[in-house]
């Protein structure tokens, strides 16, 4: 059934492997990206149980070996793959929910809109909190323009400070809700893509399950944001975190690591000639 045309341009790599790439895109949305997002939001929501609880979980994560490799291999690269293929998919579609006003068609359009919002949100969010890269010269530059505002060994206090302004709070609420909708609706389409829910009854059941999941995860995500923005007292949290750090260093649970600790600008007074500002620390 091959076409008789000899001079037809050869299909690109993306086109020839369209099926596998789309399935990989679908899978990557759920595992690892979606699974990571659920764990991430749940971890963050632990701040509702106090800054100490959140700091404990952050120590657990930072106890993992080769954290940078894990970050890139299981989080950043899959997100970038999913996002880049996602943008290509969006470019090849013609949303028409203005004409064909069906629930599933609105969700189709929203899946694309929330994907684009999630892309912008995740890029900015990772820069804002984490900074993307760990080397010193980069971090110093990033911090000058408001990036890398999260210090893992002063977790709750620095996250709370980063989320203290209203514009950031609004940005995070929109971003988190977009990501949650995108994941919940994505699980629903994932089930059809892979042939898990096939019949209309099964699909209706899945719609309800995904709705419940989405509402629950929204509560977790908003809880985390509200927790950081409104329940953390930055000063006391900061003192507690420093006590935890000293204790952990003393019993040999962690190695001293000033890179992961926040040092208020006030400490500048004791600045030494070579050390970058954020490395300053007064025991």
């Amino acid at each position: 059934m091959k076409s008789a045309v000899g001079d037809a341009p050869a299909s690109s790599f993306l086109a020839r492997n369209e099926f596998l790439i789309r399935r990989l895109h679908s899978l990557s949305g759920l595992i690892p990206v979606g699974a990571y997002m659920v764990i991430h939001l749940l971890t963050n929501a632990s701040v509702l149980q106090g800054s100490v609880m959140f700091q404990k979980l952050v120590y657990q994560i930072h106890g993992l070996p080769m954290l940078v490799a894990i970050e890139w291999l299981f989080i950043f690269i899959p997100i970038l793959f999913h996002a880049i293929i996602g943008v290509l998919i969006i470019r090849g579609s013609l949303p028409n929910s203005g004409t064909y006003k069906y629930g599933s068609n609105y969700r189709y359009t929203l899946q694309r809109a929330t994907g684009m919002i999630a892309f912008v949100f995740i890029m900015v969010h990772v820069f804002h909190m984490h900074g993307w890269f760990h080397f010193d010269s980069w971090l110093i530059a990033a911090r000058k323009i408001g990036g890398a505002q999260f210090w893992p060994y002063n977790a709750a206090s620095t996250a709370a400070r980063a989320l203290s302004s209203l514009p950031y709070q609004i940005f995070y609420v929109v971003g988190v809700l977009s990501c949650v909708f995108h994941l919940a609706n994505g699980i629903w389409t994932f089930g059809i893509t892979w042939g898990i829910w096939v019949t209309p009854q099964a699909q209706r059941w899945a719609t309800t399950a995904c709705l419940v999941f989405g509402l629950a995860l929204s509560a977790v995500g908003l809880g985390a944001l509200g927790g950081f923005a409104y329940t953390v007292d930055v000063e006391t949290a900061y003192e507690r975190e420093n006590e935890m750090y000293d204790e952990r260093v003393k019993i040999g649970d962690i190695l001293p690591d000033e890179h992961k600790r926040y040092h208020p600008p006030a400490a500048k007074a004791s600045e030494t000639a070579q050390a970058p500002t954020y490395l300053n620390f007064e025991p």
Partner: protein
Amino acid sequence: MADSHHNPNASHSARSFEVRILRQDGPGQPSYWERHRVEYEPEMNVISVLQRIAAKAITADGKHVAPVAWDCNCLEEVCGACTMVINGQVRQSCSALVDRLLEDRPGEIELAPMAKFPVVRDLVVDRARLFRALTKVKAWVPVDGYYDVGPGPRVSPATQEQSYPLSECMSCGCCLDACPQYLKVEVERLEGESAADFEARANNEFDRSFVGAHAISQAMLFNSHPTGATSAGPRLDALMAEGGIQVCGNAQNCVAVCPKNIPLTTSIGRAGRATTIHQLKKWFGA
């Protein structure tokens, strides 16, 4: 013309209504809107409206124009030839009743050609790609041969029940026109190109673009037929090739607009499962 027939039960009193038509003189030409006025008669459908317009061939502004071209055949919603976009929604014009349309939008009807197929003229489109997709997925039972192979296996009642609704597809293309993942592909014939070369080039383009819900559903229909299943593998291969099932984005407009109520999204789910298993088998044998 039809005052004496005026239906006193009709909910609206207007004696004439306006028909806005998106016209196009030929392939690749610009399209333009044209207004026509049609005297109301009871129980008209859009085909009879188009007949009145063609008979008069005068616009609402009194300009003489070439009659509007359209397609139709069975006049009972089984051939799909008359499919067009009526008041923004794709459907068959033979079963689009004027009384209903004027209830939804008083005084006016809007007609446009299908949005995803190349326009031949006015409301006539070329749906070659739709049929090419059926060829691509081998939407038939392979029984051609030189000798009698005897009776085929029996089809179980359960399979019959599942298959019958799928067999009602009339290849109208509504599911494609409403699909946000199905984009228009228009191949223009080159200067001096033979018909065969042009067709081959067009088919090559079509094969790279989304096959569409109708073809996915037909592939499932013939894969569940005991004799058709002998080509199940090649059909799944076709569904996994470029432009295959993976292009579907699960908007489910197809199932919502299908005039035959074919469970297209169930077929898409089944095809999703079948292609998953097919790929695993290809990798790991068995």
